[in-house]
Structure formats: structure tokens, C-alpha cells
């Protein structure tokens, strides 16, 4: 069983995460937590100081966090984006595609299920910032779109 699932080589930063609102005034915080209603774009001017962004999923069906993660990655953020809360193995693959590279679910996931979920899909239809080559690019002989 995994409590913190991480796809990064750097040491995890465990400094406490502050809210998006308070982050603006505490630029030494290092870690920030995005709630579903928060605007991830408010963080963009400060990204240089951030090592870890936690994106909270109070209920897994609230998909705003997927957009938040992509927006951060599209802005070039290279720190950790950690999904916390109601996150299950069935959401992992899409979350990875949106830029999440760490997971701290309320309910620990089974290692074997994680492995299956993340190795299942060979190809993807869309381009995101995850570096995978979309099927349309493979079809047209362009492997590094």
C-alpha cells in the first residue's frame, strides 16, 4: 500500500502548504494548496518560489483540479504537483496526463492496481504537456510533436 506515490527524483518537500490567498503575502512558503474554486493562474507570477503545489480533490467528481494542473504545467512549472484528497487508482492515468506527479490519497492505493492503471494505455489521442506523442502525430510520422 502506498501513502505517497511520487514520480519525481528530487527529495519531497514537506513544508506545510498555504492557501492561494495567503500565498501572495508569504512568498517564502514554498508550498501552496489549491482548492477547487481557486484560480491557479493567480499563482503564475510566483511560480519561481514554489516547490510543491497541492491540488485538493474534496470529491473525486469535481474535476477542476485537472485544469489547474494543466494550467500550471502549460506555464512551465516544473515543481511537484500533488493530488490530495479523494483520489483513486482509476483517476491516476488522466491525472498523470494533466501534469500531476505525486499523489497523496485519503485512502491508500494498492501497488498492483497502481502499476496496472499506469501501464495500461500505450497511446493517447490528445497532446498535453506530459511528453507523450499523440496518435495523430504518430500517424503522420512525427514522433516529437
Amino acid at each position, binding site marked *: 500500500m502506498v501513502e505517497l506515490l511520487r514520480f519525481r527524483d528530487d527529495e519531497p518537500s514537506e513544508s506545510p502548504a498555504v492557501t492561494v490567498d495567503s500565498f501572495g503575502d508569504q512568498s517564502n512558503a514554498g508550498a501552496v494548496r489549491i482548492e*477547487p474554486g481557486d*484560480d491557479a493562474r493567480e499563482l503564475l507570477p510566483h511560480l519561481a518560489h514554489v516547490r510543491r503545489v497541492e491540488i485538493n480533490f474534496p470529491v*473525486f*467528481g*469535481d*474535476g*477542476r483540479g*485537472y*485544469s*489547474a494542473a*494543466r494550467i500550471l504545467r*502549460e506555464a512551465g512549472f516544473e515543481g511537484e504537483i500533488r493530488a490530495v484528497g479523494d483520489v*483513486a487508482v*482509476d483517476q491516476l*492515468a*488522466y*491525472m498523470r*496526463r*494533466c501534469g500531476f506527479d505525486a499523489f497523496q490519497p485519503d485512502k491508500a492505493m494498492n501497488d498492483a492496481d497502481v502499476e*496496472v492503471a499506469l501501464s*495500461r*494505455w*500505450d*497511446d*493517447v*489521442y*490528445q*497532446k*498535453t*504537456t506530459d511528453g507523450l506523442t*499523440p*496518435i*495523430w*502525430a*504518430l*500517424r*503522420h510520422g*512525427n514522433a516529437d*510533436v
Partner: protein
Amino acid sequence: MYQYDKYDQQMVDTRVEEFRDQTRRRLSGELSEEKFRPLRLMNGLYLQLHAYMLRVAVPYGTLSGAQMKALGDIADKYDRGYGHFTTRQNIQYNWIKLEDAPEILADLAKVEMHAIQTSGNCIRNISSDHFAGAAADEIIDPRPYAELLRQWSSFHPEFSYLPRKFKIAVIASDTDRAAMRLHDIGIQMVRNDAGEIGCAFYVGGGMGRTPMVAPLINAFVPLDELITYSEACLRVYNRHGRRDNKYKARIKILVHEMGKDEYTRQVEEEFTHLKAQGIEPPLAELARIEPYFADPAFKTGIVDEIASDAPDFALWVGRNTVLHKAPGYVSAVISLKPVGGIPGDASADQIRLMGDLATEYSFDECRVMHTQNIVLPHVEKGRLKELYDTLAANGLAAPNLDTIEDIIACPGLDYCSLANARSIPVAQKISERFAGNGKTAALGELKLKISGCINACGHHHAGHIGILGVDKKGVENYQLLLGGSEAQDTSLGKITGPGFDEDGIVDAVEKATDVYLEKREDGERFLDTYRRIGMDPFKEAIYG
């Protein structure tokens, strides 16, 4: 028609395996129903009153003969020998066992089909004009664009937990046969002054409890920005659509509350940002898809007359065939509305037969219409009689396209756990009444649509005559609406007044049609007369 390549096939096969695994975890109790629910919904599996219901995607309504036959086989093997064609150009099976569902998906994958994203809060099956590729009035076949959107929207990592379901329709003629502006996004392929093809985006339409007609937000999105623009529309919705109240969660409410202009501004801003991300497939991908939808090898120099004076056949030709772009051909509609039948239902044998007829008479292609009928898009006029005779021998030749007998009805209380009232028996009684009194012909084009509750799966808002089932102190009750349309003159029907019981609603419909017969002027349809004279004369006749 489109054919999977190894990538498409592998995506669908992988999904089957994934769902097999999820079902196994559910059956073993490892996965709670709460966690399993969104997963099964994304594979089209609903839990209904009596059993699971499986909804199979028919992308833009197009099927090959072999696919249609496979749908018939599934009806036999896993259901009770029936399939139900729906207003979203899909097919539903009402009596499915959970443990069979992965096997059904595997059977579907063998004929390049699936049930991916046919329910759940994700981008649903893309619908289109059922006469695409055959209609004389289209500027281009809309389906290649729908296919491009299908691939983009399948397994979309960001948009699988939207505030609510999301439906897209693509058309390519000014005549709207797909209720385009009643979709979350309606796209009309258009030509600009320079002669280039592009997409007009209408966003924020829908039915349900708050019906709205989508406003135009961009009159011309170039072809090489179609996916990026769609992504922008969805991202603004995913971030800002309401999640506090599921009845206010559709994009129509966002566009309405935010205002069309502000929504459009935010989309444009997101679009500018996304353009720099290079997420758009190259035009070469569209060029790869397009030939799959090229015209079949229409014969030239064939007879352009329909020879037969058998009255039944002539009536069917007059009602159920539609002008085709190629001389010597028509599109032939197989009505799934026999008098007294269940709208949209077909037996396994009938489904297989229609598959064979598609192969034999229509270049191996058929279509599901949102009016719950089947089209053979390209039939030679010279072979129509032969086709008709086979249909007639198999209970598939009801001559009633677009008449009051061609009723759209949702499953209602006979199957649906959300229903207030039954829809199917009302549809049956109305078609029996009008077939019996012989008024169908005189009434001409009259679109009657029935929903068993406010969710409007039966499009009642958009019927020339609409019927809505409501619950009146525990008793089934029906409201009557007049004046809706889902065609290019989109409008929403208005309620006449107090509701009726099951027999009362049939009488009320007949009274409304009598007003039309009495007041109509030359060439007017029911809808035109209603628009000219207004509600009052109808109210007087119904309640007076």
C-alpha cells in the same frame, strides 16, 4: 465510412480490458458502488428500475451493415431480443447483467464499436446530420470533423469530470436535422467569403429543466483551430461551470449567468493561450479522415423515376424517402414507429435485417436518426420497390416519417428510475388514435415528442406538440406544450395550461390538431398555424 486503424482499435480494446478489470473489482466488492458508478457510466452502463441499461455509441449515427448486425446479435445474446434506438443516435439495451457487460464491450470492439463516454459527466458521443453525405443541401460532409472531435474527446484527461454531461453536434447545412442549437456545443460547417470551410460555434444550448437555445459565439473558426477552440470552450466550462447544484451545472447555465459576451471573451483568452501549446492535430489528419467519407461509387445514367403505382408503396415513397444529391438515388427512412409500437424499438431480427439491407441496397451504410428511425442513405430509385417489399414483410414499412405517428418518446416510467410518468403507452395511444381516425395524412408534418419527466430526454420542449409527464400528488399527469421546434427555426414550446390524465392527454392532442385543421391557411404546417394564431384558440378548444 470511417475505419479504425491499429491505434483506434487498440484504444478500444484497452478500454474493454480496463472495464473488465473494474467490473471484476466491483463484483468482488473491492470497489464500492459509489466509486464504480462513474466508471461504469463512462462505459455507458446505467442502473435502472429493473436491470442495468447499456448505451452503445454510434458515432454521428453512422453504422455499417456488419455493425448493425452485431447490434442485433447483442440484443439476442445479452438482452431480451430487443434494442432501443435513442434520440442521441445511439442504441440502448434495457435488460443487461453487470457480469455480461465486459463481454458485450468485447463483442462491440470486434466491429469497431464501443460504449465509451455514452454517459457520465464527460464529452458524450458526437451527433450529426443523419443525411450527411447524401443531403442535397449540405456544403460538405460534416462527419470527418465529427470524427476528429470524437478522437479528441475520447479519453480526454482534463474533461472527464466536468460539472455535467457535454453533448456536441456537427452539421453542414442551413437546414438543421440534428437539433444543433440544443446541444452544449453546436457546430455548423460554413464557408466564408474567401470560400474556405470553417466552423460556426454555438455554445450553451440544451433541454432538460431549463431549455435554452445556444447563442453563436464565433461565426468562423478555421479548420486548423477546431480542436484548440473546442478545448478552450471546455476549459472555461470545466473551471467555471457550477458544481453546487446539479440542475444548474450544464454549460447553458454558465453561458446564461456569465453572459454570452463574457463567456466568449474568456474562451478567446484561453484560445490565445492554448494556440501556443500546439495541441491541434495537423490538417494532414483531417486529410487522412476525409477519404473514409468520400461518396460511394454512385452509378450514373440510372433510372431517375420511381416506377410503381401500387398505392401502399407510393404512399411510403411519398412519406419516407428524401431527396438525394446524386441523380437516381434517394435516402430511404425505415420507420421504427409502427402504429401502437414502442418508438425506437426493434427486434434482434429486424436489426439484423436492416444491417443486411444496408449492405444490399445502400453501399453498406445505415444511419440512426435522432427521431429514433433508421436511414438507408443511398438507395437506387430503381430498387426501391424491392426494398419496400422486404420492409413491409418484416413490419418495417410504416409510412409515417415526420407525421404525428412518428413520435419521439423517452423510456419513461416503464424503464427509467427518474420518470414521473410513462411515455410509451401515451405514444402508443396517440399513434393508434390518429391511425384510426385517418387524420395523419391531413395533418402533414407534425412533430410530437414525449418525455416522462423534466429531464427532457424525449425533446418535449422542441416538439410542435410536446408532452411532459409530471407527478401530481402521486398520480401520473401530462402537460401539453405547443410551438417547439428543433430545426433551423429553433423554438421552445409553451405549456397550454393544466395537465391531463393518460386518456385526457390523447383527447387534448386531438383537439389541438382539430384547431389546426380548421384554421390553417394554404401550405401551413401545424407549427406555422400556431405561430400565426397564437395559443388562445388552442386553449379555448382544449379547455373551453
